[in-house]
């Protein structure tokens, strides 16, 4: 947020440490400003820290944004930056939240103890931004009071101080850069730094007895199983209700039925008709049954867009309020059984948004083993928001029995696959160790900004795929390939799954994009039983092409194809079993 205020550029901000893996680059006057991921310290603990470390060590000066509401923790990084000898300005952000928690901070005393300028701000409202801009213009960056016990001697003169510090702290990667052995001093240095941070925090923080305590109580209720599980159930039910009933039915009825099919499609058809006959090949490709401008655009804007926007809004709410890590705590026990830990709820919940996106975030998991399990389960059993929207839209009218069977089967497969992988894979998974940020009222502006940014990216990535998908489908249809394909796949689709053979088209489209395939199912006249079988198979079926590509990129060719093939076999096996059993 400070970054956005300085450069006028958007930055992804949320209440869960470690959600910004990318860096954002902007400009302020003559200077290039780079935003790093939010980290607790810099070294080689994880990707975020590596990125932050590399950016920070090359910087001319650093603006260290400290959360006033959690000064004690954040001072650790501040002191590390000071020890690294970097010119620094400290910004005490979220002063409003600190005040609300009943914490007063003595800015002058902090300045004195750190030896660097300290400014206060509430970035979300713009409070204090002018002072910070002024300070940067006047280059008030200073080197602070470093740990005097650090011994920087004995290094070649060309090695900068920041690098020396990290070598002393035992950072292998930095040491390797100079062909040196990493130092063994990490623990002592860290302990001294922690002690200094605590001392400073004690000296400058004063608790007042004012302030709201509802967040503390709610935070406690949210993790206590007795109250936490009902709260979680309510939250999930609320999400399902908003997405499945509110958006997937009512909003989509309006956008797809009214706006798209009622107004847009006749309009675009009449427009195209002026240039070329509708019965011609080009006419069919553009505005025919599978036309790029008819089916492609309608699915995209009439069906998907409302769902995706709604999902990102809800996800933003969860992230910004600090509730997400609490779900991690509640889910830890269950996820431990499938070889993951509570942290994995982040990629899994994100997966309900977009499996592709979620696959990338599996990097934040602690071991290679967990990353493999998470990627496999994401690809297999987690439907993405677009798909989920269509699925809820199709299954909700069928009644409770079908909803329960569908949910049960998919959840069962998720658990079963996880259990098997946990047994079969060598090695052991890491344990949960996360901080629970205080719950807070989500900031609407923050969430809207994030939703806008993510939706934009989503459309950028999806529009070409949808147009291409419609085009391929149209071409195949023109040459009579669809009938061929349907006949060819008939033993599997009709014989094994008991679906009309036209469903093969939907499954093939499902490879192009999962939701695209699910959307194709809505056009078929299916019985309730057939709908169930089709949806189960479709959910477990291969993830969309974008996700497959990311999986290949993240896991390599061998593992990638194993995951792809594994979910394909599982999908059809389970689909056939559901057909026979329910």
């Amino acid at each position: 947020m400070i970054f956005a205020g300085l450069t006028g550029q958007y930055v992804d901000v949320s209440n869960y440490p470690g959600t910004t893996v990318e860096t954002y680059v902007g400009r302020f006057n003559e200077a290039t400003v780079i935003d790093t991921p939010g980290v607790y310290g810099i070294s080689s603990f994880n990707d975020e820290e590596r990125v932050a470390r590399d950016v920070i060590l090359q910087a001319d000066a650093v603006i260290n944004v400290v959360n006033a509401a959690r000064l004690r923790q954040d001072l650790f990084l501040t002191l590390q930056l000071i020890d690294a000898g970097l010119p620094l300005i400290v910004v005490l952000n979220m002063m409003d939240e600190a005040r609300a928690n009943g914490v007063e901070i003595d800015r002058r005393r902090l300045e004195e103890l750190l030896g660097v300028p300290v400014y206060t701000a509430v970035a979300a409202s713009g409070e204090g931004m002018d002072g910070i801009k002024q300070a940067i213009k006047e280059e008030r960056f200073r080197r602070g009071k470093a740990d005097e016990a650090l011994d920087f001697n004995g290094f070649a003169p060309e090695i900068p101080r920041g690098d020396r510090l990290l070598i002393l702290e035992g950072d292998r990667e930095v040491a390797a850069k100079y062909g040196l052995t990493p130092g063994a001093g990490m623990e002592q240095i860290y302990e001294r730094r922690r002690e200094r941070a605590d001392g400073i925090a004690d000296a400058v923080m004063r608790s007042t007895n004012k302030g709201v305590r509802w967040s503390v109580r709610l935070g406690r209720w949210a993790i206590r199983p007795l109250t936490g599980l009902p709260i979680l159930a309510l939250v999930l039910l609320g999400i399902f209700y908003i997405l499945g009933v509110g958006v997937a039915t009512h909003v989509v009825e309006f956008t797809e039925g009214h706006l798209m099919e009622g107004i847009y499609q006749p309009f675009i058809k009449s427009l195209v008709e002026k240039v070329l006959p509708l019965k011609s090949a080009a006419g069919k490709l553009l505005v025919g049954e599978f036309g790029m401008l008819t089916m492609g655009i309608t699915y995209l804007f009439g069906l998907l867009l409302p769902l995706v926007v709604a999902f990102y809004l809800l996800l933003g709410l969860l992230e910004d309020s600090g509730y997400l890590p609490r779900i991690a705590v509640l889910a830890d026990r269950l996820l431990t059984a499938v070889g993951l830990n509570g942290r994995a709820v982040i990629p899994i919940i994100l997966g309900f948004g977009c499996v592709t996106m979620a696959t990338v975030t599996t990097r934040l998991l602690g071991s290679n083993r967990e990353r493999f399990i998470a990627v496999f389960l994401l690809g297999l059993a987690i439907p993405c928001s677009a798909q989920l929207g269509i699925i809820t839209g199709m299954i909700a009218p069928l009644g409770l029995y079908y909803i329960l069977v569908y949910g049960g089967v998919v959840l069962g497969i998720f658990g079963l696959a996880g259990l098997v992988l946990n047994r079969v894979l060598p090695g052991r998974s890491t344990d949960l160790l996360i901080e629970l940020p205080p719950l807070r009222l989500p900031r609407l502006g923050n969430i809207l900004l994030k939703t806008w940014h993510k939706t934009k990216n989503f459309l950028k990535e999806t529009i070409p795929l949808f147009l291409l998908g419609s085009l391929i489908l149209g071409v195949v249809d023109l040459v009579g390939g669809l009938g061929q394909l349907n006949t060819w796949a008939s033993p599997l689709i009709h014989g094994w799954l008991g679906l009309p053979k036209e469903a093969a088209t939907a499954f093939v489209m499902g490879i192009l994009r999962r939701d695209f395939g699910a959307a194709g199912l809505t056009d078929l006249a299916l019985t309730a039983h057939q709908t169930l079988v089709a949806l189960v198979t479709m959910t477990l079926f291969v993830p969309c092409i974008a996700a497959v590509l990311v999986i290949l990129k993240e896991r390599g060719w061998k593992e990638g194809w194993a995951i792809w093939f594994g979910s394909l076999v599982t999908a059809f096996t389970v689909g056939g079993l559901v057909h026979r059993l329910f």
Partner: protein
Amino acid sequence: MTLDQVRKGQRFQIEKIQDDFSRMQTLRFGIGEGSEASCFEVIPGGPIILSSGGQEIAVGRKLARSIQVNPLVHGGEEDELLYDNAGCCRGPRKKHRFGR
């Protein structure tokens, strides 16, 4: 005793964190060997949430088994009451004592 055995509301001092990575990570969070903390919540069969210096940290059950702690006050319930009244940010003053 180990961290997974503490009761809700109990105060204790962290004696030893076996796992190197976790030890460094908790130091950054603000908790190290020698820190005092109290148990904020125990999820049955799941993580232990401890509270120190106004922040909460969730520790997985297996990891908790490898963390040695030293109970400071017995009779957790009474302690929790005190803790509740004071609110999370104002527990009894905690001081780090690092053995050097």
